[in-house]
């Protein structure tokens, strides 16, 4: 088989599993889980430094930006303006030019606000960010995001943290046919088979946080997800058998004992 290197904006990403750093028990557990996952790119959130409680350690003391590609997100932003400001602050910290652009449209579902996402993407691309937008699974929206210059599109499998898996694999497949930039399924993955399905239908990568951090044993689940993404990708490249209504025998019909 040909080489299968994964690139985002010409930057090599060594794993097709991208993981978040939220919801863990503590920083050491976060670091161990990420190590077990084999991830190369990790997302982080952008927040105020805790200036009163100085005993608080720093996340990046546990995740070396020289080892991992840091992907700051604009989580918690409900307007394009907030997301642009958050992205600019993240870049000012001097660690990464990547941004996972999130502009949320609804508090209950955390579905993206498409219009605001597109508006923010346009501005951030012009300012030189490598924009990876969290989006819904609408191929029309995906094309618009690519057209304004996003480096990838990230359609959700299901609502963030819902663990429902890939709710609409058909749309994800259509998105993969519609855009040329990497398609990264982001949000909603619950079990490794969800991640494997995302890869089997042709996604370039999977991004998850709760699926690992919220598991009974996050370190074990991190490793399980790692293998699922590898297996799914290899299966996609191997080419699956078609689905058929009726049986086709696996053993020969000649030479039967009579």
């Amino acid at each position: 088989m040909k080489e299968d290197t994964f690139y985002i904006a010409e930057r090599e990403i060594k794993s097709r599993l991208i993981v978040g750093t939220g919801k863990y028990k503590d920083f050491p557990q976060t670091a161990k889980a990420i190590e077990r996952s084999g991830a190369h790119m990790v997302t982080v959130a952008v927040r105020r430094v805790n200036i009163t409680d100085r005993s608080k350690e720093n996340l990046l003391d546990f995740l070396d930006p020289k080892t991992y590609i840091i992907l700051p997100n604009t989580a918690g932003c409900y307007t394009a303006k907030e997301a642009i400001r958050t992205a600019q602050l993240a870049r000012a910290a001097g660690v990464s030019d990547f941004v996972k652009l999130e502009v949320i449209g609804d508090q209950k579902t955390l579905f993206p606000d498409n219009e605001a996402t597109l508006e923010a993407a346009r501005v951030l691309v012009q300012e030189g960010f490598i924009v990876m937008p969290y989006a819904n699974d609408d191929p029309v929206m995906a094309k618009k995001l690519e057209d304004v210059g996003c480096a990838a599109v990230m359609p959700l499998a299901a609502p963030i943290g819902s663990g429902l898996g890939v709710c609409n694999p058909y749309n994800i497949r259509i998105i993969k046919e519609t855009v040329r930039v990497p398609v990264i399924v982001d949000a909603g993955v619950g079990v490794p088979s969800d991640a494997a399905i995302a890869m089997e239908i042709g996604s370039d990568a999977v991004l998850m946080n709760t699926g690992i951090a919220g598991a009974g044993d996050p370190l074990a689940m991190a490793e399980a997800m790692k293998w699922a993404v590898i297996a799914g990708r290899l299966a996609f490249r191997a080419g699956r058998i078609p689905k058929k209504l009726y049986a086709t025998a696996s053993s020969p019909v000649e030479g039967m004992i009579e």
Partner: protein
Amino acid sequence: MVILVNGEEKELDKPLNIRGLLQLLNLQEERIAVEVNLEIVDRQLFPSFELKEGDKVEVISFVGGG
């Protein structure tokens, strides 16, 4: 003079630049971003950017998130 830092009032007994403020707060300059009155301050200007009465300062860093 009184300024706001991450939403909290801070009394300063003498004028400070951003570098001075970060030292006062016992914060390293790396891997953080500073915004004063909604404008991001380039880290090269930390030693020269003087804070004024009533300035709203935000000191931002990275935390766990998905």
